[in-house]
């Protein structure tokens, strides 16, 4: 009896305090504002929502956003639900929430039927069981596509500047054609390799990399093939060109045929010498290795982008005693080519080969522009690293990716 009485008295004292907690949950303070605006630098499908933090945010409370195509609702379509302590705007020090959503996903059928751009209306609700609070104003927005992504402005300026540099130097090279190019031993050795093949009466093998015609390294390789084919035609040596990609095959056939024509030897062109070896990496390697061993090619050219097969090709060629010249922009395969080939062109030397072999002023001009651009980048790197070390991030900011 005494215990029951004591429990009753204690609960009377505790009741005001328990209701104090209830009061704290009940009195959610909504955010003072709610904005919806078109997300900048996008394709017009995204809407940005932004609102200031509320004092009553907690891990139990959530923000829910409802949307409608009409100002007066009904706001029944839930487009967003987040915990109230998450999704803060970057750099706002947790003072603002920011989210990007695509309302079109929720109103697909309706927005397909509307002409022009639909307007969306959003209502923000803050809720924590059993209470919910709504912000008074409804935010509305008509998202629009942007014609320029301003976050990529620095990228665009660099592109225009570099393009202008290339074009200027090409023009400059027309007036001053004797531009200096440092020696690239691998390219100078092409004539020796072709001469060796001619003396031995053995064929020359030209191996493209594994990439398709969309790859710059393949385009560069095809350019070199054209120049080599002219010399091969003049020396009356057999040239075998293996391909892995059908489009590269077509281009190679065209290039070699035209080269033979230019050398005055259209009769010497054999279409079957420019062939498709296989369409997959390792069957291609097996086929080309077989050709090297059976036909005992005197000179092998590996030009383009290679993968794991580079060592198999180069080692097989080395075992047959052929002179080998490789040119690749594939960073991981360079060590294998360097150890097994007689000459290796590294990285952009592959792209410079066309200009180097032809010595055309227009092509040389663009090489000079590349060097200037590299010099600018090196300067920016050194300066930027030095400044960043002392806390000045200006140059890092200039080159920040959008």
């Amino acid at each position, binding site marked *: 009896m005494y215990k029951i009485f004591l429990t009753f008295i204690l609960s009377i004292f505790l009741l005001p305090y328990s209701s104090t907690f209830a009061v704290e949950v009940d009195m959610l303070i909504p955010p003072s504002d709610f904005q919806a605006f078109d997300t900048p630098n996008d394709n017009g499908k995204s809407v940005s929502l932004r609102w200031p933090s509320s004092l009553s945010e907690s891990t139990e409370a959530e923000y829910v956003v409802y949307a409608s195509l009409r100002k007066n609702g009904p706001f029944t379509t839930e487009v967003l639900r987040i915990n109230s302590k998450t999704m803060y705007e970057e750099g706002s020090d947790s003072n603002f929430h920011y989210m990007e959503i695509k309302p079109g996903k929720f109103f697909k059928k309706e927005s397909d039927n509307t002409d022009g751009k639909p307007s969306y209306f959003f209502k923000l609700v803050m809720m924590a069981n059993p209470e919910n609070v709504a912000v008074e104003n409804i935010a509305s927005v008509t998202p629009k596509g942007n014609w320029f992504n301003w976050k990529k402005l620095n990228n665009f300026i660099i592109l225009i500047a570099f393009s202008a540099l290339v074009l200027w130097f090409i023009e400059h090279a027309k007036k001053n054609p004797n531009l200096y190019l440092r020696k690239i031993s691998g390219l100078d050795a092409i004539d020796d390799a072709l001469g060796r093949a001619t003396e031995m009466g053995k064929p020359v093998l030209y191996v493209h990399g594994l990439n398709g015609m969309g790859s710059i390294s393949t385009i560069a390789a095809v350019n070199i093939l054209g120049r080599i084919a002219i010399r091969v035609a003049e020396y009356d040596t057999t040239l075998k060109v293996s391909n892995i990609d059908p489009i590269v095959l077509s281009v190679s056939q065209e290039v070699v045929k035209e080269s033979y024509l230019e050398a005055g030897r259209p009769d010497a062109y054999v279409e079957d010498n420019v062939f498709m070896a296989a369409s*997959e*990496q390792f069957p291609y390697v097996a086929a080309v290795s077989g050709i090297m061993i059976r036909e005992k090619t005197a000179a092998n050219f590996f030009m383009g*982008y290679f*993968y*794991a097969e580079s060592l198999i090709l180069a080692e097989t060629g080395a*075992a047959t005693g052929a002179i080998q010249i490789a040119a690749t922009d594939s*960073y*991981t395969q360079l060590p294998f080519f360097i150890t097994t080939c007689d000459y290796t062109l590294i990285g952009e030397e592959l792209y410079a080969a066309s200009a180097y072999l032809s010595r055309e002023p227009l092509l040389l001009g663009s090489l000079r522009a590349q060097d200037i651009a590299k010099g600018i980048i090196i300067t920016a790197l050194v300066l930027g690293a030095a400044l960043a070390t002392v806390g000045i991030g200006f140059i890092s900011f200039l080159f920040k990716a959008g």
Partner: protein
Amino acid sequence: MERLLRVDRRILFAFVAAAVTIPLLIKFDLPVIATKEVKGIYNKIESLPEGSHVLIAFDYDPASKEELQPMAIALLHHCFKNNIKVIGMTLNPGGTGLADSAITEVGNEYGRKYKEDYVFLGYKTGVELVMINMGENIYSAFPKDFKGNATTDMPALKDVQSLQDFDFVVDLASGSSIEAWIAFGKEKYNFDLGAGCTAVIGPDMYPFLQSKQIEGLMSGLKGAAEYETLIERKSSAVAGMSPQSVVHVLVVLFVIFGNFLYFMTGRKK
């Protein structure tokens, strides 16, 4: 000494064959410690809630199966164990059989249902072009899955319209598709990307790790072994560590011995 320098290649090949075969027969375990690169992928998947969508691109062919299939299987085990929905696809025509068998076998092991918990979309030609299409609308890129079912109403693809709706994308590549996924996928459509690759192209991926363009990287059979260790399911990759270690030691010994002979015979360039 000079004869040793010009030894027949086949003798060296025999040594390598023995170095691979003997550890597989004797079977000894080596400790595998997970690196932070592999933990990047593990932690990301571990952080995903149940019902999340993970896209795995099985961009490898049978030649790279020994390195990448264990990675794929370990990843699938992790996803299915955590009740994550797995969507598979491949940009390599040689990879369809391997991808389909991996995803089906592991899915069945966990009692997952095709079309509800996982789906294999199959192969599409075009690499970057497919990524752009998937980035806009996954259903226009893959109107049907590998088995010919329409993809539009699949429960496994619910709430997924495009690449942006995936919680995590992992590319297992034997070629250059990882760079393509970064340039044409992540940079355009902004999703979290992880990568697995053969050991040969692993060094190529380090700049992307440092610039946080990929969350994590599994490189070669060791990367697969580290992942198996993290998910506490040691399998073929961990078993492959002993022969791999022995061969690495053998190659180092070859290098040292070759240089020793070179200097002893007094050769100069």
